[in-house]
C-alpha cells in the first residue's frame, strides 16, 4: 500500500473511531464511560503518533523526549489523584453528631 493510501486509510479509521466514541457516549455506561472514551482516545492518539508523526522513524533522542513527557504526565496525574481522593476528614465527621455550636461558616 503506497504511503499516501496508508495515510488516507488511517484518516478514515480515526474518523470511524471518533464516531464510535461519540455513539458510545450516549450509552448509559456510568463509571465506565470515561474509561471507554479515554481508551478509544489512546488508540487514536497512537495511530496519529505512529502513522502521521512517524515516531517510529524518528531518532532515538526524539522518542526519549516524548517518552519523558508522557511518563511525567502519568506520574503527576497519578500523584494528584491519589492525594485528592485519599484525604480523610476529621474523626467526628464519621460520627453522627455534628458539632453543637461550631462556628460553621459557609462550608
Amino acid at each position: 500500500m503506497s504511503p499516501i493510501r496508508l495515510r488516507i486509510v488511517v484518516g478514515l479509521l480515526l474518523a470511524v473511531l471518533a464516531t464510535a466514541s461519540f455513539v458510545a457516549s450516549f450509552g448509559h455506561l456510568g463509571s465506565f464511560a470515561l474509561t471507554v472514551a479515554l481508551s478509544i482516545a489512546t488508540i487514536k492518539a497512537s495511530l496519529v503518533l505512529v502513522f502521521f508523526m512517524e515516531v517510529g522513524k524518528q531518532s532515538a533522542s526524539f522518542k526519549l523526549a516524548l517518552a519523558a513527557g508522557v511518563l511525567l504526565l502519568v506520574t503527576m496525574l497519578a500523584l494528584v489523584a491519589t492525594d485528592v481522593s485519599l484525604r480523610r476528614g476529621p474523626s467526628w465527621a464519621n460520627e453522627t453528631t455534628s458539632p453543637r455550636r461550631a462556628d460553621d461558616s459557609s462550608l
Partner: protein
Amino acid sequence: MIVLPDLARHALGLPVEATPTAASVDSLHAAVITTTLVGTACVAAVTFVFVLRYRRTREAPAATPRIVASGFREWLTASAVLALFVGFWAVGYVQYTSIERPPSGTLVVYVTAKQWMWQFTYADGRSSEDVLVVRAGTPFELVMTSRDVIHSFFVPSFRIKQDTIPGRWVTLYVDAAAPGSYPIYCAEFCGVAHSHMLGEVRVLDEADYAVWEREATHDGYAARGREVAASHGCLSCHALDGQKRAGPSFAGLYGSRVPLDDGRVVIADEAYLTHSIVDPLADRVAGYPAMMPSYHGQLSAEETGALLELIRSLRDTLPTQGRVP
C-alpha cells in the same frame, strides 16, 4: 530512644517539650542532627587529610594514577546511606500519623483562623479569642478551618503545625500537655498582619481549670455580646483593645465623637451604632475602607442588644497604642 539532654536542646534553641509526642519527635531530631554533624565532619576531615597528604609540591603537576571506583563499592555506600535515610523516613512516618490523625472520640476543640486572629470554640459552645484554655494531661483534638485565606496553626512547644485551609476541616492531635503557657504562631503567610496573628495555649492543672470553667460560665450580657461579635466575624475587623484594624476599634467608642468621611461628626450612641450595623456605608468613619458587609436581617434583636452592651462595656478602656501601624 535518645533523650535529648537539656543542654543540647537548649543549645539547639528548641523550646521545652510540652507533650510526649514532642519528646519523641525531639529524639528523632537528635538522631538526624547528630548524623548531619557527623557526616559533615567526616567529609571535612577526609578532605583536609587528602589536601595535606597530596599537596602539590613542585610547580608543574606530576601525573597522577588513574583510579576508578569499583561499581560494587559505589552501590554499597549508596545503599547504606539510603538505608539510613529510609530509617529516618519510617520513624518520621509513624510519628507524623500520630500527630496528624487523632483516635476518634477524644475531646474536640474547633479552631477558626481568620485574617489575623484565632477563634476557639469548645465542645460546650463557649468560644474564646486568641487564647486556647485546656486541661493538663487530657488529650484533645483540634478540628480546624479558615474563614478567608490559608493560615497555619503552629505551637512550637508541642512540635505541631497544620495549615488551616478555607472550605475544609483539618485535624491535629495533642496528647497530654504539661501545664504552662505556650505561644501560638501563624506559620503560613496570610497578609499584612501575618506576624501579629499570635495566640496562646494556656494549659491549666486540675484546680485552675475548674476555677476557669466555673468563672467563665456566668459572665454578664457583655460576654454574650463578645460571643455574638466573635461568631459573626466582627472581631476580624474591629479589635476590642484599641488596635486599628480594617475597622475602628470598639474600645472607648461608645459616647465618643466620631469624624465621618464626609466631614460630619456624630456621637457614637445606640442609634448610630445600630444604624451602622444594618447600613455600614451610610455614615462611614473617616480613614477606614468601605468594606464592611451589611448585617441587615442577620442579627436578632437580642444579639444586637448584646453587641451594644459589649461596646458600652468597653466605654472606659482607653485605646492602647496598638502595635499594628
